[in-house]
């Protein structure tokens, strides 16, 4: 269960996130959709306890798998050692490393130092790291960024299965409509720090028109 209640955040007087409320139930994938700079990352960081809200409250029950927007690990550390290290940090069994590597598609990269991976490979290590210990909630910030089309499809399948098979609550931020409509049960649309709509994605074309209109409206007011 992930829930945001009237989350607000100001940076030096500028209100970047304002009165954002929504929740993600177990078994549900919620898309957090909005243009660049809308406040998605800021909201997620407040949910994770990495940023103090100026107002409101964010909560995540149980362990959470987090994939940050610009994921990076330690260049000198091999993929497997990094994942083992993260297991120890999360306090979960080291035995989970192989499963996470397989699921994220980095099964063959175990001995490779992180610094010598491609952009897409790095992002998948980030995903693997989030999967460790089968948490009950996921916060994935731009999860598919830097992946090639094949991998995007795989990643979306993976995200879906987290909710469907593991009954996890999954919050995925994206600025891509296609992504939202492909995997999400529900979409929370944010623009200029405010939630402007919350609905089930229907046909992609329909959503796109609505989205652009919503964003435009928000920017006008």
């Amino acid at each position: 269960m992930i829930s945001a209640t009237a989350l607000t955040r100001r940076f030096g007087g500028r209100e970047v996130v304002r009165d954002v409320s929504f929740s993600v139930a177990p078994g549900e994938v919620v898309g957090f959709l909005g243009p660049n700079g809308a406040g998605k990352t800021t909201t997620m960081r407040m949910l994770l306890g990495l940023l103090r809200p100026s107002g409101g409250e964010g909560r995540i029950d149980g362990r959470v798998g987090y994939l940050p927007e610009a994921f990076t690990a330690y260049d000198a550390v091999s993929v497997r050692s990094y994942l083992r290290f993260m297991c120890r940090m999360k306090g979960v069994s080291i035995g989970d490393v192989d499963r996470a590597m397989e699921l994220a598609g980095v099964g063959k990269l175990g001995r490779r130092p992180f610094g010598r991976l491609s952009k897409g490979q790095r992002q998948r290590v980030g995903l693997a790291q989030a999967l460790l210990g089968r948490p009950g909630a996921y916060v994935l910030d731009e999860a598919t960024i830097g992946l090639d089309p094949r991998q995007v499809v795989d990643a979306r399948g993976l995200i879906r299965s987290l909710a469907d098979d593991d009954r996890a609550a999954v919050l995925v931020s994206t600025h891509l409509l296609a992504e939202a409509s492909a995997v999400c049960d529900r979409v929370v649309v944010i623009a200029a720090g405010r939630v402007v709509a919350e609905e089930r994605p229907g046909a992609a074309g329909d959503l796109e028109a609505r989205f652009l209109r919503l964003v435009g409206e928000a920017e006008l007011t």
Partner: protein
Amino acid sequence: MSFARVRAVAGKELTVLWSSPVPYVVGALFQAVLAALFVDQLHAREQAVVQPLFPLAGFLLLLTVPIITMRSFAEEARTGTLDLLQAAPVPPSPLVAGKWLAGWLTTLAMLLPTGVLVVIVRWLGHPDRGPVIAGYVGLALLAATLTGVGVLASSLTSSQPVAAMVAVFGLLLLWFSNIGSGTLNAGDVLAHFSLSERLRSFAGGAIDTSDVGFLVAAVVVTLAVTALVVDSRRLR
């Protein structure tokens, strides 16, 4: 605070650190400068004394330890890997303790080859064993304190060079605070914090519980403050 986590953090830090050129270059420079200065001392004194080794080594550590510790928190804060650890969630204490431990072990590794200088003195004459033992105990404790200060400085900023400079500056103030106590008439208060005076006591061949207590306490205090800083910087 689980020791398994501390060990994991320390192990990761050691891997990262020793995969970079930093410890090798710093170790080589440290050894070369220290050896040149010390052999010169032997030449001038014509006595089999090891005592001058320790103030020299201590002062050089003042400049090298911050280079070893500067990346510990600053780099993780800059790249964002610290967020992942804190979202894991890892409380600050095992992070601080692990990073300090890695820095301390690295510094001790830097000191290990200086033993060749003691071997040289023993080859040339018959030095007193007391100052060798007490001096290295003092250096190890000093290294622990310096590492604590270095890690603290690194937690204050996301910039490695700034962290190193803050640490060197702070350590120089501590090192010379006994001089300040004389001129400022601040008496024992400033001198109490003088790292050079503490080290000199060890180098002379005596282990004084007040010196051991001070250096250990300094480690504990700097690490506790670092934990506070890391935690408060998390929630900004």
